């Protein structure tokens, strides 16, 4: 028998208990490495000074007061969507239908604005507050309905929720496309344009004299609320138990189906709220791309934050910062839009990849020449 006395070059060992400090150190190293790689790539591709690129990224996100506010507003919307998905994820219900739930909520708000606004025959009008209440209620309900359907299918027939929530996205997109044609202004443009431009009916109010603040304030409220709900409420506890083990949940008499449906109503409803903000407060119009893939980005944000609402603020900031910074690079250095995606991709790769090094340790071969064959 061959006597192969050589240890493998390395073997992977699971870390048991990583201190918080160590974990954050690893993450920090990952971010630094990611920026380094992006910088090198930028220099190779564009001959520009990488430091200049980094500064440009920062200025893209926080360069002026207005840029900062827009960044914060984007952060708020993405944060709300991420928080909306979080209870479902904690329940191990893979809701990747955030996009559709946001869109349908936005569509409901737009419908209220359209149907109860300038289109009404002369002489007939609703008070503005009433329109807004209708918008809030209908968009949350619409989002909740979009969450309810896959949840009910799952509870009743145990259908795969990843597929059904994904499919619901396409239904929402097509519905929005249909109503855009129906309400398009001017005819044939394929766009709705700004709704109620003259009367501003259904335009959600500004807070503290700024049109950006409403989303930001709501995001803060939702973050705190979601943290309390998940950590201290009975519902939150049920969600955690159902997510960890349905059998345990049944064993202690929890109604698993009820918990699934209730949680998805919440998840969808909050997405609907994000849709309301996008239409009623930010854009005052609706397009099929108004959510801009944030329903999917939120999946990543929520995961990166390990479903902790407060950590989610930072992961959202990271993603939004990257997005805005990268697009600034593209415009400033006259690179095409794909370049910003490449940079974002590199940074995310490092951040997600570093989780491996938090959970595992690599042991390299220690003893070599001093081994004696016996």
């Amino acid at each position: 028998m061959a006597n192969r006395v050589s240890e493998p070059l390395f073997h992977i060992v699971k870390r048991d208990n990583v201190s918080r400090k160590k974990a954050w150190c690893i993450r920090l190293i990952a971010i630094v490495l990611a920026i380094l790689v992006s910088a090198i790539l930028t220099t190779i591709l564009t001959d520009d000074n990488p430091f200049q690129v980094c500064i440009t990224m920062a200025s893209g996100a926080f360069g002026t007061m207005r840029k900062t506010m827009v960044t914060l507003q984007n952060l708020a919307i993405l944060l709300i969507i991420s928080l909306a998905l979080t209870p479902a994820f904690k329940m191990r219900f893979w809701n990747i239908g955030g996009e559709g739930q946001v869109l349908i909520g936005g569509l409901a708000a737009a419908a209220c604005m359209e149907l109860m606004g300038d289109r009404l025959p002369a002489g007939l009008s609703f008070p503005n507050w009433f329109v807004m209440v209708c918008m809030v209620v209908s968009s949350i309900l619409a989002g909740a309905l979009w969450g309810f359907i896959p949840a009910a299918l799952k509870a009743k027939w145990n259908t795969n929720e990843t597929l059904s929530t994904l499919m619901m996205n396409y239904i929402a997109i097509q519905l929005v496309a249909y109503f855009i044609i129906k309400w398009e202004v001017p005819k044939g443009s394929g766009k709705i344009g700004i709704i109620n431009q003259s009367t501003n009916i259904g335009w959600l109010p500004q807070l503290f004299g700024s049109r950006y603040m409403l989303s930001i304030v709501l995001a803060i409220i939702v973050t705190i609320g979601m943290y309390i709900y998940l950590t201290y409420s009975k519902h939150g506890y049920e969600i955690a138990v159902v997510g960890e083990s349905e059998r345990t949940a049944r064993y202690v008499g929890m109604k698993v189906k009820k918990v699934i449906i209730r949680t998805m109503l919440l998840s969808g409803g909050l997405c609907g709220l994000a849709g309301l903000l996008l239409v009623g407060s930010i854009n005052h119009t609706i397009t099929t791309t108004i959510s801009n893939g944030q329903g999917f980005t939120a999946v990543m944000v929520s995961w990166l934050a390990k479903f902790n609402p407060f950590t989610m603020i930072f992961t959202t900031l990271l993603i939004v910062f990257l997005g805005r910074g990268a697009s600034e690079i593209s415009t400033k250095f006259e690179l095409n839009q794909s370049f910003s995606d490449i940079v974002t991709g590199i940074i995310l790769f490092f951040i997600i990849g570093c989780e491996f090094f938090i959970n595992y340790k690599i042991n390299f071969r220690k003893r070599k020449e001093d081994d004696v064959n016996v």
Partner: protein
Amino acid sequence: MVKYLGNVLFGHFPNFFSEETSLEAKVAAVQMRNVTKTFGSVIANDKVDLDIYKGEILALLGENGSGKTTLMNMLSGIYFPDDGQIFINGKEVVIASPKDAFSLGIGMVHQHFKLVDVLSAAENIILGLPGKLDLKAATMKIMEICQKYGFEVDPEQKIYNMSVSQKQTVEIVKVLYRGADILILDEPTAVLTPQETEKLFNVLRKMREDGKAIVIITHKMHEVESLSDRVAVLRRGAYVGDMMTKDTNAQEMTDMMVGRSVSLNIERPDPVDPHKRIAVRGLTVRSLDGILKLDDVSFDAYSGEILGIAGISGCGQKELLEAIAGLQQAEAGSISYVSDDGRKEELLGKDPLKIQEMGVTLSFVPEDRLGMGLVGNMDLADNMMLRSFRKGSSMFTDRKAPEKLASKVVEELDVVTPGISTPVRRLSGGNVQKVLVGREIASAPKVLLTAYAVRGLDINSSYTIYDLINQQKKKGVAVIFVGEDLDVLLEISDKILVLCGGRVSGIVDGRTADKNQIGLMMTTVGGEENGK
């Protein structure tokens, strides 16, 4: 490096417990030197030196978490040691994968079988072997091995048609087919009836005669005594010593494992004022895929009594307990709960919440502790809350009470844990079970259902659990105790109900019953009288 050389040149340091004289004649098949393995901060094996000789059966003993399985996994290539050396037949080797282990003639039969259900025995045995697929030749070779050692295997039979014992036989043949001279069995008898166990032991004895080195990991002392030549003891990852089996006894081995003296008697107090608590009549349960799991089962369970349930695993024990606990729907029959004033209430068709709301305090220690009784990723306090989180009308949970309960359980049952905010999956098997049992008896139950309460637990933890169950019995709780170790069932139960294929094979008195009779009842309804 000097250390390694020292071991190599001078061999195994004389050990405090070992009997050098009788071992001298034997040839070491495996020598492990200074083998160390850590998982994170946990040291699973700490500088272990172990010799395994040809032509002997070595029983590897130790409490849960003492590192027996880890040590053997390093021998069979599943884990790689952090430090130390392994010599096979005197040559130092590196075992980096199960394949390496096989080529060195090491084969391990794991606690959980690793067979493909839809393939036949022969197909499973040759699975993954290089060379041309020649089922005929393989079958011939399998038959040869079977004849040599006295196995009964039908090479054509599909795995899904096999009993647990047959599957185990296939696993052993698989290992032998690959030419293993060093055979490791991890708790092989946990799932076998006494008759099947005896058959397995006969086979193992034949292999010993054939010069093979055999290691068996087990918690059952009487098996160690009847089968092994030598025992080696691990405690908290470290090697304590070895002894010849004929020179020792169960008490000494247990004390060595635990590190202090332990009493090995299960008490059986006489039931005080028993009256009917649970009456099951004609209970028939079918699984989702239409298989009859329980067939017309009827029995009574009395307060202050322990009703043991014996049977080969998968004979309806799980369904029976889950039906009583409100987790299993039945096709026919009734389960009534008799309260102290004689009122009867039907439990069948109600879910656990409803049963709780009816005022029936029913505690259930299920077989699958971390998958059903507890949530592995949650800490002790949160797991305590599983039973109590609904209390109060507030929408928020009360964390104070469960925290208090967790601290109380930790203190009273000596749970080894860094604290009550440690996830339970980090605890060892015995401690997990203490947490679960502690929570279940905290609600002062009228009925206590336990399924395999000591499965996988070491002897010390097992006796703690027996004590706890007996305490409940003394408090007048009706205990239904599903067990797999007949010796224990015979020691602890007042009555024993034997299940066979979902039917009641008989109910016998625990004080007078005979082990062989129960063994027969487990395989044929009614035992000898109705048997062939």
